[in-house]
Every structure is written in C-alpha cells, then in structure tokens.
C-alpha cells in the first residue's frame, strides 16, 4: 500500500507569545491521495490560513507534523520542502521586473534556471502566451494571479497550496482563474489544498472538504455529504 501524498498528523499551533495560550489550529488531521483536492472552509479567524501555512512550514506547528509521501517533513530543509509544496496566495505579490524573471525565481534558487521555451510553455498553460517580456506593473489583477500560478508551477511541485486565490479578483477574473487552477491541478495530477470561504467554489473544485471552526475540525468528508446546495 502506498503512503498518502499529503498527510496532516494532529497539527496544532498555539499563538506565539500570548498568555493565556490561544490555539489557532488544534489537532487537525487528514490524508490526501495524489491528485486529490481538499477544500478548507470556515469563517474568518477559523485558522484556515494558519493550517495552510503550516503545510509548507511558513508557520511552525506547536505539535504534530506533516508527511509527504510518508516522509516526515521536519528533518527536510525548509527550502527543499517549499520547492515540493508550491503556494498561491490571495494576492500575486510579483517581484519587480518582467514576467519571465518572476517565473525564473524559483528554479534559479536551486541553480536550475528554465530555458526560454519552458517559460513560454508555462505561460501558455496559464493563458498568457508572449507575456514573458512584459513588465509586471502593466498587468491586470487576473493576469498577475496567472503569472503567480505559473511562478509556483515553475518549481514543478507535487503539492499546491492555495490561499483564497480568487478572493481579491472581480467576478470575471475569479471564474477564469478558478477554471485555470482546476485544469492545471488535474492536468498535472497535483495534490491540492484550497482555502476558500465560498461553498459553491468548494463544491466545484474539491474532492474532499474540511470544515474548520475556531481552529478545530468540525467535519471532514465529500462535498456531496457536507455541502448540500
């Protein structure tokens, strides 16, 4: 039997430096097979983003751990871990320069810059052909988010974490980015954890749903079971 692609084992995070101790996430666990999409739903302050940030170790768990293909992530160097676990944020946060330099950012960090053709292929995948030399200041919100997705994919991750990637976009851009992400995740067979507050979006994109409230798991199951229209 093969190990799950991503396993979250009793993850807990206590707010640092606060007395009395305030748990942000408590004892959360789930397992995802390769290619599965988990939507994390919950009200503001439920701990969705904190849970996501613990998965690529941008935040440190107080207890518990994460396993990638059965391997505990704690002994892994954080830089290596983050190349395997890509992340898309609410905003694109592009670096100054052109689109190509943003896409090159991750591969350059591990000393393996991409060829121009590889950059172009990534841009075509996110629907921005011939954008490589465009200055990022000239991009719209939706285009910036597409570049951020291509930038995360440039590292060729096995897991993709998405923190409300469509919440800062207008309705038209929101739908097209959601479609793009779904197609990329399925085409690359990525294991994906997608934080959203939109139940309809969770129904459309997810294979499984985790409902979080006050840092605790309320329910974990299929969208059909948990999110009846």
């Amino acid at each position, binding site marked *: 039997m093969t190990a799950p692609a991503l396993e979250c084992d009793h993850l807990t995070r206590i707010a640092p430096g606060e007395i009395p101790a305030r748990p942000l996430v408590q004892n959360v666990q789930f397992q995802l097979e390769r290619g599965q999409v988990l939507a994390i739903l919950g009200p503001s302050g439920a701990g969705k983003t904190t849970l996501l940030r613990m998965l*690529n*170790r*941008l*935040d*440190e768990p107080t207890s518990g751990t994460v396993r990638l293909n059965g391997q505990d992530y704690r002994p892994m160097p*954080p*830089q*290596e871990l*983050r*190349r395997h676990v*890509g*992340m898309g*944020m609410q*905003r694109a*946060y592009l*670096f100054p320069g052109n689109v190509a330099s943003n896409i090159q*950012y*991750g591969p350059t*960090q*591990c000393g393996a810059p991409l060829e121009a053709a590889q950059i172009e292929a990534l841009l075509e995948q996110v629907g921005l052909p011939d954008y490589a030399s465009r200055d990022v200041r000239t991009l719209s919100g939706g285009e910036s988010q597409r570049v*951020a997705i291509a*930038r*995360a994919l440039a*590292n060729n991750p096995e897991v993709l974490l998405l923190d409300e990637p469509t919440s800062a976009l207008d309705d038209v851009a929101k739908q097209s980015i959601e479609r793009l992400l779904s197609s990329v995740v399925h085409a690359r067979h990525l294991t994906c954890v997608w934080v959203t507050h939109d139940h309809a979006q969770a129904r459309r994109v997810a294979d499984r749903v985790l409902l979080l409230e006050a840092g605790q798991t309320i329910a974990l199951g299929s969208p059909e079971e948990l999110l009846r229209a």
Partner: protein
Amino acid sequence: MLRLLFHTELSLGLAQATVVAVTATLVAILASRRGAHLQREIPLALLRGLVQILLIGFVLAVLLRGPWWTAIPLLAGMVLMAASIVRTRARAIPETYTLSLICLAAGAGVVITLMTLIGIIAPEIKMLVPVGSMVIAQNMNIQSLFLNRFLGELRSHTGEIESALALGASADTAVAPYLRSAFHASLIPATDNLRSLGIVWIPGIMAGMVLSGSSPVYAALYQFVVLGMIFTAGGISCLTATYLVPRRVFTRNQQLRIRG
C-alpha cells in the same frame, strides 16, 4: 541683544539655550496641529540633550586634564548609550541592543581605533573625545535609520518576502532587496553631507579649528577627513547589520518572525 543682557559666559549660554529650546518647542506644537505628535517627544529630547551636554561639559573639563587613555572608557560608554538609543527605533527586531552594539563597535569602534593607530586622530584626549563622539553619534543616526527603514520595508513587503520563501528562496535571498533599500536610505544623509561640504554648510569642527588658530586649509582638509570617517563607520556598521539582521528576523526554519 542677549549679549547686552547677560554678561557672564554661563548666563549667556543658558539664555541662548532657553531661546532655542522655546523656539523648537513652538515648532513641535505647531507640527502637532498638523498631526505629527511631537509635543511630548521634542521637549523631552531637548531637556535630555541639554542636561547631557552640560554634564559632558563638566566631565570634559575634568577629563581634559587627565591621561589620553581616559578617552577609552568614555568613548566605550558613548557606544553603549548609542546602542540603547538605536534599540528604541527598532524594538520589534529581537535582540536589537546586542545587534546595535556589535554594529556600532564594528563601525565607529574599528574606525576610531584604526584612525588613531594610523595617526589621523591624535592620541590626545582633547582630540579623541570630540572627534570620536562625532563619529559615534553619526554612526548611531545611520544605524537607527537603517534598522527603522528595514523594519518598515519588512512590514510593508511581508507578502513578497513570504512569496519568495514559498518559492524556495533562502531567508537571506528573500530579504536581500529590503536590506539593500535600507542600506541605501540610511547613508543618504552622510552622502549628502559629503556632497554639500563647503557649499551648503561649513561644519562645526572646521569653524572650531579656525577659531582656535589652525590654518583654514588644514581645518578644511580635517573636516573632510572627519566626514569620511563618519561615512566609513556608518557603512561598516550597516554592512555588518545586513549579515546579522536576517538571523534575527527569521527563525531557524526560515519563517518570518515579524509580519506586516
């Protein structure tokens, strides 16, 4: 006008200090009406500055008669005080006092020692203390600007820094553009001082040397030397900070401790 009213040097000096303090306080009150809340900070800083400079005047009066080495504990004390003042500008950075102390020692400390050994600063207390204190004070300003600016950059670019980390960048790489920006900004006043030397301002040390009988050309050259020392000390301390700061703002696992 004051000279007609006050006939002793001490009473004239106190009257001059009072007039300047009242004027600065009025400016602070006016500024507070425009939303800059300086009405408490400025009078306190003025009072503190006055008391400190008077005390150092008395201390110098005693020390200037002593052997040259008495300058060492005096300058070391100044570095310790400067580090505690720098700390107040960037308290959010962990262990700021130690960080500032190391950076000031690496900047002002090394420059003063080296310049004394070479013979640019005469090993006499009347030279070591005023010139050394000038280098330390300006180094303190540069260091405060650096840390304050860096903290601002860190808070306003948290998203970019964490995006870089999420893409597999090291903490040093993720924060490098903001260290560069802080480094550049902190040296602007020292650079501008060098650029405007003799055109926009004639600094105090040169005026003092001319008044005490030195040749104006030598006084001018020496003023340039002092500004060069200030720039060098500031540059070294900020360079040192660029190596030490990332270890304090990131955890061992390359997680950002300070977020916007």
